[in-house]
């Protein structure tokens, strides 16, 4: 009766996606609150089972000389209006409540698990029938059902609680059904079925263990609401009235009758209830966390966390950083001041072991109208670098050192005010996943118009017209119909055009394109690249293009910055890079990839893997995979050296590379 809500949220969370390790209880030991709750509940069961065996006094013994005495040595929690010992009565009073809850839980579990497994396993018509039935039962107003049952079985606690279990069971049924379905469709279970394992055996061996966690969660939440329901009924005098002996509910009722004389009595009775419900809730939460995992991080800071690492920002030797900052050196790009100038950019992410540096000492310039590519294997830090330029690092990442100067302003200040002012208006961003970059709830036209209005003083009508112009600008064939669409109605290519239009709405001087074609089909990739190229010509904006695709790089960029394991290892005009690479990493990539210009071709595999930030080698980060490595390479930080005009490489053996060619 009190908040009889079993939240559907748990259905989703413990649903098909739930990675359900079989034994939640082991982890329980590591959770003090959960353990405490479990211990308390166990104690409660013992007390309820023992009845008057454990009570310090006879719960029914009147003592009219000491009524409503308040807590004392003789009566720890005081006495009631007949002088009976409250503590003893609470102990005995736990029995009807726990019994009622046990009955309700039994019905809840038997019906929920059995029907849920049948529905999930059988599928088809059986499943639909059971689901319908469940919906029907769930829709019956619970309070009416309880009142009816109590009319048929007056004062019968068991009947009421069994009914309560019955009408609540569909919520468990749904959870069990979802888990069963997920497990049934897993490969190893399919294999087991094909190899002739009987259905009961599959249920027992594969499905039941996976159900344990979600079922315990649901049961503890349900038990909490059953405690509240049982005591409410007893309080109202509908079940377990006082004539049947003390119960938690009727004791609150008694306390209510003397409330004006002695409000104290409300404390132990209510306290007992709150603690018990809390214990059940905490137990449920604990098991939930253990089986589903502490799900979400928080807020505007997304959940993507870097791998935990031992090496912390602090641990990076100060000299190391100093060297890195110093050699985030400028490439002389003629006399004009560059539009964007990045120096010594160092980015760290929080991890359980402290901050981990994932990008170190990155420096490059972008001139007005220029297109600079940042290339590297995934995990090299190129996306993080790009996102830091607009001040939108995910997962609590922050710039710990270095500067980002855009048209003379410093964007790397920690508060991020400056960069917030430039976002959208002077710097645009397009991302890898065009679809998930659009708000699913609003029409394309209204999203676009909102951005337009944010950056220009226009009326609503003007901004809508401008939105259509932008859609035409990105060469969408029917701007009006696209404007009326919701994002889910667009194809991937259309969505990417829309997000380009959104990025162009503020007429930025710099567009940061983070792998703009990765998620698209090969033919669509070429179209988008063509669009970007023609937009550059038409708008004259500069582009920073993050890619792991040599073809895209060759297609669009004048200059390239090659990154490896959080550092810039080489930067040069694209043609120099292709024809005369000066870093063993670039060379290895190129050597493994004879068809340079083919769009859609990913960076080729070279032996070994990119080390995670936690495992960066002491000297050159590429050393473990480098064919030119010598002992010196591991000695200390390698500086970025200028090998020719506008061409730099982070290698102490550039000369040997030269000689080898």
């Amino acid at each position, binding site marked *: *009766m*009190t*908040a*009889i*809500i079993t*939240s*559907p*949220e748990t259905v989703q969370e413990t649903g098909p996606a739930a990675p359900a390790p079989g034994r939640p209880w082991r982890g329980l030991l590591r959770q003090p609150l959960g353990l405490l709750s479990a211990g308390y509940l166990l104690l409660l069961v013992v007390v309820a089972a023992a009845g008057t065996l454990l009570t310090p006094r006879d719960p029914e013994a009147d003592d009219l000389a000491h009524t409503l005495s308040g807590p004392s040595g003789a009566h720890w929690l005081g006495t009631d209006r007949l002088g009976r010992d409250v503590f003893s009565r609470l102990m005995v009073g736990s029995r009807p409540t726990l019994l009622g809850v046990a009955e309700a839980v039994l019905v809840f579990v038997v019906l929920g698990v059995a029907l849920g497994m049948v529905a999930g396993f059988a599928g088809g018509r059986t499943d639909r029938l059971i689901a319908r039935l469940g919906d*029907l039962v769930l*829709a*019956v*107003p619970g*309070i*009416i059902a309880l*009142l*009816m049952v*109590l*009319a*048929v079985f*007056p004062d019968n606690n068991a009947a009421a609680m069994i009914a309560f279990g019955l009408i609540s069971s569909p919520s468990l049924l749904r959870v069990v059904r979802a888990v069963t379905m997920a497990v049934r469709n897993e490969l190893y279970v399919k294999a087991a079925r094909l190899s002739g394992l009987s259905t009961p055996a599959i249920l027992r061996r594969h499905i039941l263990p996976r159900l344990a966690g979600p079922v315990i969660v649901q049961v503890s939440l349900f038990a*909490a609401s059953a405690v509240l329901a049982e*005591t*409410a009924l007893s*309080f*109202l005098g509908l079940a377990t009235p006082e004539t049947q002996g003390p119960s938690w509910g009727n004791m*609150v009722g008694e*306390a*209510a009758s003397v*409330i004006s004389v002695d409000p104290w009595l*409300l404390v132990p*009775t*209510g306290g007992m*209830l*709150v603690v018990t*419900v*809390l214990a059940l*809730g905490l137990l449920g939460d604990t098991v939930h966390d253990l089986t589903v995992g502490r799900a*979400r991080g*928080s*807020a*505007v*800071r997304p959940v993507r966390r870097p791998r935990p690492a031992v090496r912390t920002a602090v641990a990076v030797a100060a000299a190391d950083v100093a060297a890195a900052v110093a050699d985030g050196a400028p490439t002389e790009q003629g006399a004009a001041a560059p539009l964007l100038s990045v120096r010594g950019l160092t980015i760290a992410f929080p991890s359980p072991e402290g901050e981990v540096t994932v990008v170190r000492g990155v420096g490059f310039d972008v001139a007005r109208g220029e297109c600079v590519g940042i290339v590297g294997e995934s995990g090299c830090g190129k996306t993080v670098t790009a996102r830091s330029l607009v001040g*939108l690092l995910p997962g609590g990442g922050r710039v710990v050192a270095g500067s980002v100067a855009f048209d003379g302003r410093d964007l790397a200040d920690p508060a991020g005010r400056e960069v*917030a002012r430039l*976002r*959208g208006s002077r710097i*645009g961003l397009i*991302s890898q996943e065009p679809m998930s970059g*659009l*708000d*699913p*709830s609003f029409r394309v036209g209204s999203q676009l118009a*909102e*951005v337009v209005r*944010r950056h220009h003083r226009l009326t609503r009508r003007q901004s809508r017209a401008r939105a259509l112009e932008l859609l035409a600008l990105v060469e969408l064939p029917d701007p009006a119909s696209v404007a009326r669409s919701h994002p*889910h109605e667009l194809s991937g290519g259309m969505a990417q055009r829309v*997000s380009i239009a*959104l*990025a162009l709405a*503020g007429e930025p001087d710099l567009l940061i394109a983070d792998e703009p074609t990765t998620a698209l089909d090969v033919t669509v990739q070429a179209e988008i690249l063509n669009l970007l190229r023609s937009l550059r010509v038409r708008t004259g904006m500069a582009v920073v293009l993050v890619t792991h695709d040599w073809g895209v790089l060759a297609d669009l960029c004048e200059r390239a910055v090659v990154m490896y394991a959080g550092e810039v290892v080489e930067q040069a005009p694209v043609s120099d890079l292709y024809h005369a690479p000066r870093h063993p990493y670039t060379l290895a990539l190129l050597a493994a990839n004879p068809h340079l210009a083919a769009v859609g071709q990913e960076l080729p595999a070279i032996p070994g893997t990119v080390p995670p930030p936690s495992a960066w080698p002491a000297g050159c980060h590429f050393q473990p995979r480098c064919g030119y490595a010598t002992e010196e390479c591991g000695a200390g930080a390698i500086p970025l050296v200028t090998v020719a005009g506008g061409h730099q490489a982070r290698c102490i053996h550039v000369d040997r590379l030269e000689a080898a060619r």
Partner: protein
Amino acid sequence: MVREAIRWLLSSLVLLFVVTVLTFVLVAMAPGDAAKAILNARSGGYTPQQYQEMRRMLGLDQSLPVQYWHWLDHLLHGSMGTDLFNGQSVTQALGSRIGPSLSVIVATLVVSGLVGVALGIVSALRGGVLGRLVDVVSLGGLAIPNFWLALVLVELFAVRLAAFPATGYTPFGTDPVQWLRGLVLPVLTLSAGAVAFIAKQTRDAMSDVLSQEFVTMLRARGLSTRSVVLKHALRNAAIPVVTLLGLLLVSLLGGTVVVEDIFAIPGLGQQAMTASASHDLPMIEGVAFLFTVVVVVTNLVVDVSYRLLNPKVRAS
């Protein structure tokens, strides 16, 4: 759209049918009947003849299906019969009791919707300590039994501070101020758990939405935090929250029984309790019917707003 409407209508009718039939059966199974109750109330004793006479008068001597048929027939003609005890028309009696219950339920929904959603948003944005605080508060809010909380509130605010009336209900038409003052404690009672529930769900939904890529992209396009959070994120988070508000409303039907009992509010919950205690079949049927209608309508409203909020569902 038409197909969905038909499906809703059919399932609603099935639900109403099942609930009313079950009510009939259960009331018939209940020990004692209305005839006995009435005779006992009148004179304290009765002869078997008087009893049979009374049963015939009440129509209790007919078979259950026939009784149900009569009830249904009346219903289709807009009547739900009369209260067996005082002869008042059930429709009228329920009509007079719907106001108090609705006042409590709607006020609780509004309070817990506003406060819960606001708390949820703030804690999703701030995370950390505030997020933990909402966790604790919501756990506590759900753990405190509402009947107990009602007593504490009465003791504190009605008895000690005399700030609000402890019992009773003043219709809005009679005195709006008294109406509001009378609602404060009952609504506070029911809101504790409700706010907790909505706050937690809103926070989860908001955190979920805020961690999505499109939120980062909205910021990258230069939109203000205000628009990102209150327009875009909230709109997306509202989709699950609306469903939960529906669930909450239905569960509040149970809550009103408790609150109306403690605060002596003459609403549907009280009516349900007295009617089921006295085997007043027409009245019980009336209440059961009305509660089920509330559930059915709530489901419809939730479904429609779900469609309005979620373009993906709307399209298909």
